[in-house]
C-alpha cells in the first residue's frame, strides 16, 4: 500500500529523494539495521531445520498460532511507506491522509467475515486451490496464477524502487550506484531468507518486524502526546499553528482530494479498491494457510485487525505530531519530502538513537514485505502453473518445492533488476493498481465460488481476465501514466480516462462479467462438487491438517 499514499497524496514519489540526509548518523542506522538482519538470520536458520515438505515450505507446516499469524499479517500489511507515507500525508494534508488508513483497516472485515475461514477450510497453498475446487482446474488455475503473479509483480516493483529512495533518506547514500547496490543487497537478503527459511522463516521475519514497528510507533505516540499534555485538541492546534495561514484546512476533509469533481471521483474509486482489494491480495490470502484450523485463521484476523487498527491510530498522532513539532516547511524541504515526516519527528523527539531505530525498522519493513510477496509468487508459479497446469498434478512434492526455490531466485533477480531500473521513475501507482486488480479480478471469483452455486468456469475466466485487463487498460489511459508533468510519460498524451484509480469501473465490471460469463456458458453444473465445497468450507471436514511437529 506504500505507493498509493506517497504518490497520490503528496505527488512526491519515494524515489524522488536524491540527496543525502543531513540529520542523524548513518552509521547508527546501519548498525541497528545490521543487528536486525543478524538476529532474523539466526532465527530463519533455526526455523529452516524442519523444512521438508511442500506444506513446510509454502505454509510453515500450518503450525503457527492465531496470534503469531495475526502479527505476521500485520507485518506483511504495514509496508514501509504505509508508516512513512501515511505519517507524511497527515502531516502535510491533514484529514485526507487519515482517510486512507480507514479504508486499509475496514477492508479487513471482508477478510474476517467472508474469506479467511472458508478459504482455510477448502484450499491448500494458493488462491487457485479454492477456485479449482469445483471449476475446471487448468484454465482456472492458469488465470488465477497469472492474476497472482501480476499483483505480486506490481507490488514488488514498487517496494524495491522505494528502497532506493529510502536509502537516500535514511543512510545518506546519494549516488545512483550506491542506491543500486543497496537494492541488490535487499534483494539478495530477501532471496536468502525465503530460500532458507521458506514460509516459516518469512513468517518469523514478519513477526519480529511487526513487533518492532508497532513498538516504535507506540513509543513515539506516547512521547508526542506527552508534549501536548495528552490533549488531542491541543496537538491538532499545534499542527494548525505550525502550518501558518490556512492551517485550519488540516482539520477538514478535501485539502488534497476536494480540488474538483474528477479528483473527488478518483478518491471514491480508490476508497472502493482499498476496501475490497485487501481480501483479494494473494500474499494476504496465503497467510491463512499457515495456521492449523479455520478457528485459528479467525483468531489471526482478529489479532491483525487490532494490531493494524491501533497502528493506524498511532499514525494519526504521529502525522499531526510531525506537522506540529517539525512543521510542513521542514518536511517539504527535507530529502524524501513527505516520507521524511516520521524520521524527522523521531529525530526531533529522541535524537540520533530514535532516528536510527525508526530507520532500521523502515528497512526491516521493506525486507519483510518483499519476502512475503516472493514466497507467494513462488507458490503460485510452482504449485499452480508448474505442478497442476504443466504437469497436470503428476509431480512429486520434492520437485514442486525445488521449482518453487528456483522461482524464488528468479523473482529475486527480477525484483533487483526491476528495482534498479525503476529508480527515480514514478512507479508508485503500481501499488494502487495491485489493489484494484485484487478487488476486480480476485475477490469476485473467490466470493462467487464460495457462495454462488450456479457459478462456473466460464464465469471465473470472464471475471479474472476481464477484471485484470480492464484495470491495466484503464491505468494506462489514466493521468498517472501520461498527460501531465507528474505522469510516468510526461511528454506523451493519451490520458482519456480521467480517474487516477480504475476501481470504480473495473470492480463492478469484474463482478458483472462473472455473472454474464456464468450464464453464457453451457457447462454442466456439478452439484456434487458444490456440495463438497460448501460442506467442507463451513464445517472444516477434510481440511488440510497441520504437519506433525518432529
Amino acid at each position, binding site marked *: 500500500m506504500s505507493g498509493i499514499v506517497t504518490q497520490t497524496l503528496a505527488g512526491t514519489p519515494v524515489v524522488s529523494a536524491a540527496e543525502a540526509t543531513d540529520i542523524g548518523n548513518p552509521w547508527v542506522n546501519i548498525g541497528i539495521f545490521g543487528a536486525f538482519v543478524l538476529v532474523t538470520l539466526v532465527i530463519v536458520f533455526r526455523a529452516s531445520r524442519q523444512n521438508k515438505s511442500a506444506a513446510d515450505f509454502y505454509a510453515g507446516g500450518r503450525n503457527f498460532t492465531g496470534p503469531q499469524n495475526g502479527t505476521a499479517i500485520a507485518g506483511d500489511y504495514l509496508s514501509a511507506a504505509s508508516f512513512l507515507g501515511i505519517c507524511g500525508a497527515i502531516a502535510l494534508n491533514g*484529514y485526507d491522509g*487519515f*482517510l486512507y488508513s*480507514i*479504508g486499509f*483497516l*475496514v477492508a*479487513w*472485515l*471482508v477478510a*474476517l*467475515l*467472508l474469506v479467511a475461514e472458508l478459504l482455510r477450510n477448502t484450499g491448500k497453498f494458493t488462491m487457485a486451490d479454492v477456485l479449482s475446487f469445483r471449476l475446471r482446474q487448468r484454465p482456472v488455475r492458469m488465470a488465477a496464477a497469472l492474476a497472482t503473479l501480476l499483483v505480486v509483480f506490481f507490488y514488488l516493483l514498487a517496494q524495491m524502487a522505494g528502497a532506493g529512495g529510502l536509502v537516500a533518506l535514511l543512510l545518506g547514500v546519494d549516488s545512483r550506484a550506491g542506491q543500486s547496490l543497496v537494492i541488490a543487497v535487499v534483494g539478495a537478503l530477501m532471496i536468502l531468507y525465503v530460500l532458507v527459511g521458506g514460509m516459516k522463516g518469512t513468517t518469523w521475519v514478519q513477526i519480529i518486524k511487526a513487533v518492532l514497528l508497532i513498538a516504535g510507533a507506540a513509543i513515539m505516540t506516547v512521547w508526542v502526546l506527552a508534549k501536548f499534555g495528552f490533549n*488531542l*485538541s*491541543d496537538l*491538532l*492546534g499545534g499542527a*494548525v499553528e505550525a502550518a501558518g495561514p490556512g492551517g485550519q484546512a488540516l*482539520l*477538514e*476533509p*478535501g485539502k488534497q*482530494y*476536494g480540488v474538483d469533481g474528477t479528483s*473527488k471521483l478518483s*478518491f*471514491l474509486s480508490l*476508497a472502493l479498491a482499498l*476496501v475490497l482489494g485487501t481480501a483479494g491480495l494473494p500474499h494476504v490470502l496465503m497467510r491463512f494457510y499457515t495456521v492449523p484450523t479455520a*478457528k485459528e485463521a*479467525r*483468531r489471526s*484476523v*482478529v489479532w491483525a*485487525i*487490532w494490531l493494524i*487498527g491501533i497502528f*493506524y*491510530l498511532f499514525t494519526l498522532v504521529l502525522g499531526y505530531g510531525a506537522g506540529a513539532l517539525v512543521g510542513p516547511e521542514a518536511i517539504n524541504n527535507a530529502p524524501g519530502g513527505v516520507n521524511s515526516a516520521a524520521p524527522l519527528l523521531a529525530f526531533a523527539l529522541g535524537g540520533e538513537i530514535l532516528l536510527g531505530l525508526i530507520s532500521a525498522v523502515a528497512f526491516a519493513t521493506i525486507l519483510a514485505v518483499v519476502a512475503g510477496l516472493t514466497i507467494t509468487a513462488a507458490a503460485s508459479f510452482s504449485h499452480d502453473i508448474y505442478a497442476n497446469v504443466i504437469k497436470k498434478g503428476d509431480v512429486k512434492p520434492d520437485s514442486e518445492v525445488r521449482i518453487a526455490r528456483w522461482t524464488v531466485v528468479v523473482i529475486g533477480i527480477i525484483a533487483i533488476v526491476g528495482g534498479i531500473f525503476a529508480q527515480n521513475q514514478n512507479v508508485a501507482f503500481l501499488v494502487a493498481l495491485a489493489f484494484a486488480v485484487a478487488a476486480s479480478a480476485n475477490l469476485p471469483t473467490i466470493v462467487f465460488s464460495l457462495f454462488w452455486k450456479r457459478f462456473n468456469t466460464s464465469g471465473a475466466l470472464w471475471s479474472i481476465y476481464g477484471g485484470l485487463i480492464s484495470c491495466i487498460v484503464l491505468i494506462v489511459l489514466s493521468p498517472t501514466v501520461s498527460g501531465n508533468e507528474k505522469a510516468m510519460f510526461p511528454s506523451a498524451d493519451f490520458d482519456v480516462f480521467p480517474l487516477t484509480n480504475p476501481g470504480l469501473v473495473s470492480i463492478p465490471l469484474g463482478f458483472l462479467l462473472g455473472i454474464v460469463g456464468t450464464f453464457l456458458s453451457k457447462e454442466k453444473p456439478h*452439484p*456434487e462438487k458444490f*456440495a*463438497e465445497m*460448501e*460442506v*467442507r468450507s*463451513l*464445517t*472444516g*471436514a*477434510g481440511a488440510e491438517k497441520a504437519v506433525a511437529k518432529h
Partner: protein
Amino acid sequence: MSDLSTAGPPPGETEYQRVQRSDEFQGLRRAFRNFVFPMTALFLVWYFVYVLLANYAHDFMSIRLGDSNITVGLLFGLGQFVSTFVITMLYARWANKKFDARADALRREIEEGEL
C-alpha cells in the same frame, strides 16, 4: 450417521450431498449467512456513508466541537475504527460460542462416517 439422513436419498448421491441436504447442515448454513451477510452489508454501507460525507459534505465534516480543534469528521473517522473493532469482537464471540460447536459436531460425523 442415521440422524443426518432425511428422506430417502436419491440414487447416485454423494456423502457430501447427503450432508448438504440434512437439516443440521441447512441450519448451520442459514445461521452463518444470517450473521455474515447483514453484517457485511452494514459495515460497507457505513463505510461508504463516511467516504461520501468526507468527499461531498466538507462543511458538515468541518464543524468544530465547542472551542476544540476536534471536528465532526474526525469523530466519524474514529467511529470507523470503533465500528470495525466492535464488529470484529461481535463476530468472534458469535463464532466461538454459537458456530464452532455445531460445525465441529458435523465435521466429526462426516469424518467418522467416511472411515
